[in-house]
């Protein structure tokens, strides 16, 4: 197998020309997203060029310390994304969310590098940063869904929750139905993806590998392992995020603290 043909500057420009279609659609149907399309495409291009640049040097230097430090920066940005995208109070949720993401993603990526890819240096930039980034990126949405679902459901059903406490439930016993519901909401979409992968879509990683010259069989093996790693890291990170945030979100009587939400929810 040979690698994919190089994408020249001219080829990139040709690709950007395709955006004329959504821009025209926006104008014809007055969607008012023309400016957003341009900004989003611009940001994507800039961010990916920057990613390409830092990855180039991370791969080149391949320092364990630098790789870990860089990954921690990625985790902090991810934590900001999770907490900011939810309705939850940053001060209460920042540290527990960061801890949950760090423990879950790093443990899965190190297991993956050691037992699945079986590389000598499990912190090697090419795998630690790239695989870790993939797990992190795919865990974010699930984390946002689960943590938002968990706290908003308790808030919406406060009477029911307090009634359970009044009936003698311990904190964990009263929270279990909400944990189950929020984990389901986070995990079901990825399970649905696993059900149809390869049938109705060729995943990005697999396509990228094949375009890069790998055989389809090699590409699917990587895709299978990475899907399992994503599912497991999402599973661990959602459980840990809920578990760690419970400690800071409920008072000693089991009541949901008043400052849990950014603003008062209806």
């Amino acid at each position, binding site marked *: 197998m040979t690698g994919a043909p190089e994408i020249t500057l001219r080829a990139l420009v040709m690709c950007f020309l395709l955006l004329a279609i959504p821009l025209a659609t926006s104008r014809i149907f007055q969607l008012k997203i023309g400016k957003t399309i341009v900004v989003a495409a611009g940001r994507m291009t800039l961010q990916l060029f920057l990613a390409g640049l830092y990855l180039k040097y991370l791969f080149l230097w391949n320092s364990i310390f630098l790789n870990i430090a860089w990954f921690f920066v990625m985790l902090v940005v991810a934590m900001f994304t999770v907490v900011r995208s939810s309705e939850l109070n940053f001060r209460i949720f920042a540290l527990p969310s960061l801890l949950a993401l760090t423990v879950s993603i790093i443990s899965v990526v190190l297991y993956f590098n050691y037992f699945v890819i079986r590389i000598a240096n499990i912190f090697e930039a090419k795998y630690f940063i790239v695989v870790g980034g993939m797990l992190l990126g795919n865990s974010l949405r699930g984390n946002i869904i689960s943590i938002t679902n968990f706290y908003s459901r308790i808030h919406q059903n406060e009477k029911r929750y*307090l009634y*359970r*406490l009044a*009936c*003698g439930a311990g904190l964990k016993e009263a929270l279990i*139905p909400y944990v189950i519901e929020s984990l389901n909401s986070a995990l079901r979409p990825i399970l649905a993806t696993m059900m149809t992968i390869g049938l109705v879509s060729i995943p990005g990683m697999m396509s990228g590998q094949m375009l890069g010259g790998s055989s389809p069989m090699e590409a699917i093996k990587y895709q299978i392992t990475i899907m399992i790693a994503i599912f497991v890291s999402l599973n661990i990170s959602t459980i840990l995020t809920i578990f760690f945030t419970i400690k800071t979100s409920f*008072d*000693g*009587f089991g009541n949901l603290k008043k400052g849990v939400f950014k603003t008062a929810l209806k």
Partner: protein
Amino acid sequence: MIRYENISLKFDARSILRNFNLTIRDGEKIIIRGKSGRGKTTLLNLLTGFVQPDEGRVLLDGVPISPETIWSARSRLAFVGQSVDLGKGKVLELLQQIFDYEVNRPSKPARQRLESLFEQFDLDPGQLDKDFSDLSGGEKQRVGIILAILLERQVYLLDEVTSALDKTLKEKVIRYFLFDCSETVIAISHDKGWESAGGVRIVELGEL
């Protein structure tokens, strides 16, 4: 014994209770009266730990309600509210969930006992297999009352528990809590039926 000692409490800068004191002996039947916003439900919530006083303390059997003691305190209290919300699912399953809690396991009732209590409060035992959400307000209220009885607690906290019941059922519920049971009862009700029964102490919460 329950003691409210010098309780003061504000909600949004509005005083609800100021230096409130009350002692309730074991087995006593207390009816709390007062206009809306005078802190009737707050008195029950102070016991269950859902509200904390700004000043003062609440003691149950001589032990102050605190984060350390609230969990064991709740295992001695049975609360029934105006609207009972057990969640989604069949009535029997929802009741069983409550008895799966560690503190409630010893009092897990057999179906026969459940059915007999359903009959006692004019509920068809067939309702046990119905969805809780399909029950009427009055039926839900009675399921809440039955659950409180089954929990076999020392203190019943009843917040307008007869509001959705007809006259005959009201009398039945009032008779049960005021005469048939020996436990302490603290009931909030505007229903004259509670007050007219003998042997009750009425606590009036006035304007501050």
